[in-house]
């Protein structure tokens, strides 16, 4: 479901003398349905950069990056929008939502944009929030007021609301207590079982060992760091 | 030129021939495009704006020495405004005048259409204060012209909507907007909506003159005129729920007249000629067949309160 060939990336800082910073070269990787691949490498080696490129959030400088049937590296914005709606889910470390929107609607939104009837979407959202131990009295409030751990779980619920065939997980278990960590890992295992291809970053080694089928060290793709 | 001058004091009907020709051109254009407001170069008249300068100019442009002129104000031949305009044309054109609707060839009116049905060949000239029906909702002249051009009349219904929202019904009771021949929305001048049905399919030629606003518009004979309304709030005429106290008419438009300071009142035909005609035929109302004009009768009650003494 994800196929990456010879992918490269650099940043050009126009306002700092046009400095060009190469951050990735020759990246190769693939993720099949039902498989979870973990990205490893020291901080700054480009794990999140690679993840963001897969999501279409960063442009690529060269190479191929195919998600499902779409080459993200050369796709039109609207193709990427459609890909994100139907195929590609992303649980980032940050929750970016319109302030004042109730948590229940934040979680239901990925389903609503797909045209799911509101009642059905909210029921699914409620199920996930309940499972992730977000107290029901908070559902009507905006998650912007929540603690870090609660925001993280809302983000996860949102990422799992729709059964995306491809999932990107950026530190999904960070800042979670043991019980909630267990629930998230179970959610990941369920997604794998239904055939989702998952690309993840896990600093939590136990989690990595439990859900990842393969590990890819991105240091190998980092210019100047590669051995 | 000198042929037209009757006594040497005035050009026939006061206005010079060039001006009358200019006004006639505007009238012809207005007749060719029913309901469309034709601009014209309105002249200063020897009377203030608001006293019918537009109507007077239109009448002046239409008058011939053979015409018989009737002038009414609120239906009455004998109120100040009517009397002064009638005298104006007697002096400047020397035309015959009449109070009988059926005898007149030209009738200048303020705020009424006579009760007696008009006939082919007659001309009814309306005095118009504000010709633009969209004015109170859209102050920009450029925009209202564009709206007329493109028949964008949603705004007109907004006005009626506001009426119903506020009063539970269309409370506009005079200057009620109409649509002419399926195109132009027109202000019929401040006639009561009771008179609106008479606008449509009328055998007479109806001309509208607005002096201050410099516009002339017209309804040629037999023009189709529809009062705007909603499906669930259809246009309805209205009048005081009484019969005329002088002539007993059940279907004429009535004025309410206060007769004393103890709540006494009477209802009389606003059309004095119509009322007098009925009484001459022997019809009698609640207060009997007084042979005075209804307005004169009403006026005789003025002066009961000092504050109204001398009021027009």
């Amino acid at each position, binding site marked *: 479901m994800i196929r990456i060939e010879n992918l490269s990336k650099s940043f050009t800082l126009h306002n700092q003398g046009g400095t060009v910073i190469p951050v990735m070269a020759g990246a190769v990787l693939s993720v099949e349905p039902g498989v979870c691949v973990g990205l490893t490498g020291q901080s700054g080696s480009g794990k999140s950069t690679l993840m*963001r490129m897969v999501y*279409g959030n960063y442009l690529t400088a060269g190479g191929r990056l195919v998600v499902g049937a779409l080459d993200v590296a050369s796709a039109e914005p609207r193709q990427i929008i459609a890909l994100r709606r139907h195929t590609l889910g992303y649980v980032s470390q940050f929750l970016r939502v319109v302030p004042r*929107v109730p948590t229940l609607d934040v979680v239901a939104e990925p389903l609503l944009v797909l045209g799911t009837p509101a009642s059905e979407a909210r029921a699914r959202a409620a199920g996930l929030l309940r499972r992730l131990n977000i107290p029901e009295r908070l559902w009507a409030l905006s998650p912007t007021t929540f603690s870090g751990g609660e925001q993280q779980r809302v983000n996860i619920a949102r990422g799992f609301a729709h059964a995306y065939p491809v999932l990107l997980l950026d530190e999904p278990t960070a800042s979670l207590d043991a019980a909630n960590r267990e629930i998230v890992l179970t959610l990941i295992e369920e997604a794998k079982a239904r055939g989702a291809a998952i690309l993840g970053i896990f600093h939590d080694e136990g989690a990595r060992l439990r859900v990842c089928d393969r590990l890819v060290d991105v240091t190998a793709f980092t210019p100047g760091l590669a051995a | 030129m000198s042929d037209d001058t009757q006594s040497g004091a005035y050009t026939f009907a006061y206005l010079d021939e060039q001006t009358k020709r200019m006004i006639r051109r505007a009238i012809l254009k207005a007749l060719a495009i029913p309901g469309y407001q034709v601009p014209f170069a309105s002249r200063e008249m020897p009377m203030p704006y608001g006293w019918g300068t537009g109507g007077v100019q239109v009448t002046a442009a239409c008058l011939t020495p053979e015409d018989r002129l009737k002038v009414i104000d609120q239906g009455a031949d004998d109120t100040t405004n009517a009397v002064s305009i009638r005298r104006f044309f007697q002096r400047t054109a020397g035309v015959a005048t009449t109070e009988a609707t059926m005898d007149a060839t030209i009738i200048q009116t303020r705020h009424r259409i006579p009760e007696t049905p008009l006939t082919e060949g007659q001309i009814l000239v309306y005095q118009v204060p504000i010709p633009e029906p969209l004015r109170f909702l859209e102050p920009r002249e450029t925009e209202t012209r564009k709206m007329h051009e493109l028949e964008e009349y949603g*705004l007109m219904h907004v006005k009626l909507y506001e009426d119903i929202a506020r009063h539970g019904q269309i409370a506009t009771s005079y200057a009620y907007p109409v649509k002419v021949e399926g195109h132009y929305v027109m202000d019929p001048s401040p006639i009561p909506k009771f008179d609106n049905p008479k606008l449509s399919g009328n055998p007479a030629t109806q001309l509208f003159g607005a002096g201050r606003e410099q516009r002339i518009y017209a309804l040629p004979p037999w023009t189709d005129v529809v009062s705007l309304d909603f499906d669930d709030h259809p246009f309805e005429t209205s009048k005081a729920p009484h019969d005329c106290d002088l002539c007993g008419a059940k279907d004429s438009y009535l004025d309410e007249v206060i007769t004393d300071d103890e709540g006494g009142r009477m209802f009389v035909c606003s059309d004095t000629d119509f009322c007098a005609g009925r009484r001459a035929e022997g019809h009698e109302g609640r207060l009997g067949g007084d042979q005075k004009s209804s307005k004169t009768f009403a006026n005789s009650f003025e002066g009961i309160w000092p504050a109204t003494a001398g009021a027009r």
Partner: protein
Amino acid sequence: MTIMDRIATTHEPLLRVDGLTKHYGPRIGCADVSFDLYPGEVLGIVGESGSGKSTLLSCLAGHQHTDTGRIAYDGRDVLAMSETERRRLGRTDWAYVHQNPRDGLRMGVSAGGNVGERLMAVGARHYGDIRSKAADWLGRVEIASDRIDDRPSAFSGGMQQRLQIARNLVTSPRLVFMDEPTGGLDVSVQARLLDLLRGLVRDLGLSVVIVTHDLAVVRLLAHRLMVMKAGKVVEQGLTDQVLDDPQHAYTQLLVSSILQV
């Protein structure tokens, strides 16, 4: 079939702009602007004051004369249309939300009348229907139904803006132009309006061109982003991509200049 399915199966752009150019005398208003807008898409246009974004919007909406270029709406050449057709489009398929609600509302007409006007403009003649539709739309923009007969002058700025949106959307337009719709509003009111707009875009499948200088607004509202400078488009792409990985020097400057809360 849901709106989203309908949109997904549409492969023709709703609005196609090609080489649009507008000069003010010797000065450039906007130059050589091209883009496609598909059903259900929100396009954000950002740039500093004088960058040409408002000029572009008013040319698109037909409020200003365009010098050269082509605008095709639903396959029809907009610039070749008669004024009658264009104005008809302006009160049926298109809507325009002004920055200042006073420019988009009739301040002397009740809230219900404001919303009802577009219905009456396209021929609605049943008072009861017009009123219930107006009430329904007031509800959708969260204005209490007992305010239906109040004039907008009695409303707060945020309510006026929501009323303007209701007035514009009541005839189910397909294309909405918005000029800084959240400008001049309190931050909390802004958030409520953003949520409302997102919901309406989603539920009605609206296509929107929104001009703003507020990058936070476009991040939350726009699918795609166009960055303008000195009348020209310097960069366009997916909104989050343009904001997170800007390619042009000006965009980088713009993004790095945002104050963090």
